[in-house]
């Protein structure tokens, strides 16, 4: 594994601090080769590469994600990298990607907005044998056929770990609310089911009393939490499916004159702001969802074009921040 990357994202103080690490477990899964997928060997350096970002870059996760791709491409000396941002408009993302295929990109890295709805892109890409690496959110399709591979976290596992931390923080009982991510993608679905299943299993005395979408946005997280705190003043825990919503929730808690720690907050992503919230006592734990996809994505592509087999599902390891390590590890947050 490359150790010397990660100059990338804004927050990475120590070079290796934020790098993605592949889970050893996923090493044994099905693989894909150039032969299986079809296509020709190319040199990545001179190749045309396209990256399609889905959401506006208001979320540090997105900033870090895009920056990581750009930085790694620069580091590898890839001269022709096109990036687009769909500003959360799905049809725009589809035409962004199609347009990149038309313009002859030879590798596509996509951070999809929605997990479904990629048929036309696949049709186009497969006709031209352009390998697609989807990062962060997964696309519901067949790896090594419709797309090459998925690189990202185990979202159900993230939900499960969040549940563990929540149960611990709440002392295995009480009422918890969920701030749901935006609908239509596997991240939200799995983080929800992973969390709920685990709570039911390990802490049956914890009740999920409230679920509303905050669309992964800070403002909506805050607004929903403000209402929640009025109707359920006895709420003990808030699970934010990303850090932004959790930070909005914390602002709401402060506004409702709650004290740090009154309501346990657990969330997912690992942004600087959220980890700082642990340090400040407002949050209990943050499960990381590492957005620094650049190195791993290009390493995978290099291997693939070099004829080596690559995993169809490259699941990364996510660290975790809690009261014990937040202060010391905040430098690896983004």
């Amino acid at each position: 594994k490359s150790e010397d990357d990660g100059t990338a994202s804004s927050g990475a103080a120590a070079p290796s601090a934020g790098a993605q690490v592949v889970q050893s477990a996923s090493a044994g899964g099905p693989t894909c080769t150039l032969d299986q997928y079809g296509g020709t060997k190319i040199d990545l350096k001179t190749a045309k590469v396209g990256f399609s970002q889905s959401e506006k870059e208001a979320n540090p996760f997105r900033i870090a994600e895009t920056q990581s791709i750009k930085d790694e491409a620069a580091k590898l000396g890839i001269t022709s990298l096109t990036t687009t941002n769909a500003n959360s408009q799905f049809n725009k993302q589809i035409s962004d990607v199609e347009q990149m295929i038309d313009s002859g990109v030879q590798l596509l890295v996509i951070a999809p907005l929605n997990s479904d709805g990629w048929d036309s892109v696949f049709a186009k890409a497969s006709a031209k044998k352009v390998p697609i690496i989807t990062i962060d959110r997964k696309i519901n399709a067949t790896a090594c056929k419709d797309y090459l591979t998925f690189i990202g976290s185990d979202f159900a596992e993230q939900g499960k770990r969040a549940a563990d931390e929540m149960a611990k923080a709440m002392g295995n009982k009480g009422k918890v609310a969920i701030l749901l991510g935006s609908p239509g993608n596997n991240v939200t679905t799995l983080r929800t089911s992973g969390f709920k299943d685990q709570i039911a299993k390990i802490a049956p005395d914890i009740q999920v009393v409230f679920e509303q979408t905050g669309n992964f946005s800070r403002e909506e997280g805050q607004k929903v939490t403000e209402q929640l705190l009025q109707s359920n003043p006895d709420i003990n825990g808030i699970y934010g499916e990303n850090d932004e919503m959790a930070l909005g929730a914390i602002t709401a808690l402060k506004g409702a004159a709650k004290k740090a720690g009154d309501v346990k907050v657990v969330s997912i992503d690992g942004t600087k702001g959220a980890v700082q919230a642990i340090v400040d006592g407002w949050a209990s734990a943050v499960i990381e969802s590492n957005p620094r996809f650049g190195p791993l994505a290009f390493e995978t592509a290099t291997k693939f074009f070099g004829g080596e087999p690559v995993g169809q599902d490259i699941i990364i390891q996510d660290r975790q921040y809690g009261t014990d390590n937040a202060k010391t590890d905040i430098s690896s947050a983004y």
Partner: protein
Amino acid sequence: MTMTNVSGPETPAIVAEDVRKAERTDRIVGTVQRQGALAVLVVVVLIALATFPNFRSFDNAATILVAAAPPMLIALGMTFVIITGGIDLSVGSLYVLGGVLAAWASQYGVLAAFLLPLAVCGAIGLANGVIIAYTRMAPFIVTLAALLGARGLMRAISSEGSETYLVQSDAFRKLGNGSFLDIGYQVWLVAALVLIGIVVLARSRFGASVYAVGGSEDAASLMGVPVRRTKVWVYVLSGLLAGLAGAINAAKLGSGVTVLGVGMELDAIAAVVIGGTLLTGGAGTIAGTIAGVLLLGVIQNLINQVGNLNSNWQQVISGAFLALVVVVQTYLARLRRVT
């Protein structure tokens, strides 16, 4: 209908010399005003062809057209509505609703995949039309309510947008991604509907009624134009086309994506206005609307071509184009009135 053949006594012509000249200027200015968007489109495309090698490819053109297909259908319906002096804010919601319904219904075959969204969106359009025509409530507000209602309905049938129905029918999917002469089926479908739209608007009695209602509702009704029926129909049409746009988009995407269509109504209105249709009603062309939609599509495409230009510039440039085109049109219209 027979005519009572009456001819007045011989009278000197009322038209004087300068009026003839005015007529000619009028026609020229009118043409520029109507075809302004087309002219701008041509200029932009020519510049793009000269500047961006990637823009030149056939594939790129086909992609622009395919991407423009659903907005074009929506703008087509919107053009009818706006010419009657109305507005339809519900189309973005009907579009996403139509897509979800089509994907769900595709398990019962291609026909169902089209019929269900058409039926539901047509019915909502009908409700819009009936309320607007018979209660004289402002179209803006009625269709704003429909925007909310239809989106709520979409969420209700998709577990708040988290459930995405996959297209079950291969034939339906084929319609979305197959092509004829290397141009997507949707483009042909839209082209055919646009042609029908042009003919209907320009050459049918219904089209004449649409213009008459927008031009002067009172006069139209005194002249025997079925004002209410015309209004009802344009909203039905708009609803049907928005639903159809959703359906063909679902066929293309292979699923009933739920995160679509927010703000699409305003894009459609912008395209129609850029195309030279007056929001006050009574005048406008479908050709102009098509040029307006393509212009917005080409701008988006070009921003992507300019390498790593922040995609937010797209909004800035589209907004500037909108302002520019409309201001120029206004001055031309004024010029026309003076002559």
